[in-house]
């Protein structure tokens, strides 16, 4: 939780005027205290309820998951839904590893492209740097949703459709502007004296990058990787366009497909909730573990 403090702790006093005599101070004394607390609990409950309902539904038995009207709480816990998901079509392991593969490749591509690019942009004088930067950030101006038609055609020619590499390329294109922005800022923050000392010792620019700058930008690398993972893991439209073989589907794709036709005839709601639970877990886990890096990237790049 303290990660929110990064931005927040910087200026504790700034909210004091809102507090005193306002929500917070009266909270300390009067009835308002309970009102605010109640509001917080109410908001949190509303936000958590759908997720809790989904997890609970994934643990219902096969019959109960298909019950009309639905039950609020499972009468008994069962892993049936997970078992059906495990064996659904090409099987959960296939879809899970497709999603994971695309996400890892996206992280790899993002890092390999944006570490040198960030270094180059931050530390060197480059002819027409501003224009270059604009070209690199083009993805911010042209939404990838609009580029999928020609990209699909290009990928057919390059034999990259139905391939995780192709999908990861699109996901990298989505993430590239943000990643370059984050990496450039990180390299800019590395003190010049360090590099100059290394150059005196006879390091060339690549060695400076490798031994001096890289260790200093590890937090930015984590931020870039985290966002690349979340984007790739969750992305639906590009996967829908590029992956049209059942065995190359990612998790969001197979779940979207499973909402209509499943082995038990109609929609298998229990299995669907199991799939949702499984696809949410990695995102939640990384977000909670790496909240500091997430917020750093979010606050610096989300609206710029």
């Amino acid at each position, binding site marked *: 939780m303290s990660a929110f403090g990064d931005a927040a702790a910087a200026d504790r006093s700034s909210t004091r005027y809102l507090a005193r*005599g306002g929500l917070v101070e009266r909270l300390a004394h009067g009835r308002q205290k309970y009102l605010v607390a109640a509001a917080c609990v109410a908001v949190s409950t509303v936000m958590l309820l*759908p997720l809790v309902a989904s997890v609970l539904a994934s643990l219902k038995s096969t019959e109960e998951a298909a019950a009309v009207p639905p039950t609020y709480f499972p009468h008994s816990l069962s892993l049936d839904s997970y078992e059906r998901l495990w064996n659904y079509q090409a099987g959960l392991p296939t879809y899970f590893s497709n999603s994971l593969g695309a996400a890892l490749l996206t992280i790899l591509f993002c890092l390999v492209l944006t570490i040198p690019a960030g270094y180059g942009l931050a530390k*060197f004088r480059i002819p027409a740097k501003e224009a270059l930067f604009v070209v690199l950030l083009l*993805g911010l101006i042209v939404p990838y949703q609009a580029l999928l038609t020609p990209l699909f055609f290009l990928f057919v020619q390059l034999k990259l459709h139905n391939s995780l590499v192709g999908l990861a390329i699109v996901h*990298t294109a989505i993430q590239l502007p943000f990643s370059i922005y984050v990496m450039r800022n990180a390299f800019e923050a590395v003190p010049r004296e360090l590099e100059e000392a290394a150059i005196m010792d006879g390091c060339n620019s690549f060695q400076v990058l490798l031994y001096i700058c890289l260790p200093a930008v590890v937090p930015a690398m984590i931020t870039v990787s985290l966002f690349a993972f979340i984007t790739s893991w969750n992305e639906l439209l590009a996967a829908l366009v590029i992956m049209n073989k059942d065995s190359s589907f990612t998790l969001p794709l197979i779940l979207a497909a499973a909402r209509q036709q499943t082995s038990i005839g109609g929609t298998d*709601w229990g299995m669907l909730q199991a799939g949702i639970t499984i696809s949410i877990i990695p995102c939640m886990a990384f977000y909670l573990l790496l909240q500091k890096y997430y917020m750093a990237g979010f606050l610096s790049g989300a609206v710029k």
Partner: protein
Amino acid sequence: MHSKTSRYVGLLYVLPALAFVLTFTVYPLGQMVWMSLHNWSLIAAKKYVGAGNFIKAWNDPQFWISLEFTLKYTILITPVLMVLGYLIALLTAENRPLRQITRSIVFVPVVIGLGASSLLWYWLFSYDFGLVNRALLDLGVIAKPVVWFGADADVALWAVIVSIVWKVVGFGTILFVAAIHAIPGEIGEAAMVDGAGYWQRVRRITLPLTAKTILLVTLVSVIGSLLAFDQFYIMTAGQPRNLTATSVFLIYLNSFPYLKLGYGAALSLILAGIILVCTCLQMLLSRRSHA
């Protein structure tokens, strides 16, 4: 490192990323313009049609239905997101444990996938099997289950809006909280000496001093809404009668299931133009905030 030769050394480092952008963004962009001027499908021969695809869009009722529906969705959801996001930001801005936890929880749906959250709400809003109908029936709000998706485009629209507000309201909240924290404390304290009440201070100080953030978040949210796809693809599938097919949905339908790639490219170009206007506004604004 700043000798003359290093000008090109620097370029060398940027080259891979540049090559990537040229191949996978600039080239497809050019290709898209080219395609939009042709009658182009994977099977038939390509034929130059000039502005034909654009004229076709102008005369295509579905193009207008989709555009209008996308705008309607954007116009309805944006104020809800901003007002709720801001209220939660005011509620949780102070750094105290309960508020920080609430803030974290409000943000959780932002990190999960839009596909997953749409499927989750597709289930919650399901006619027979959904907990929304069950709960509303139990509470006596409705007398019989509501058909949320597939029958009435407006009912479906509101159901989608509920799900998306849940999914992204935390996005604005976190940015608003950061903006509120950036307000110098003295300003508010001066107002307090003047005896201004809580909502007066919010109106006179907090809102004006976070106006730029509000505007930026509004733009980001507008752009996101104009590009809506996942939520409608999964929850409404465009039903009834493609009345809930958004602009991106229409591009997808034309390009892939129908394989009218030229027409799809023309539609993409029109959408890209609309987004471009929004993005330029956004960049102008954020550039000023750096100055």
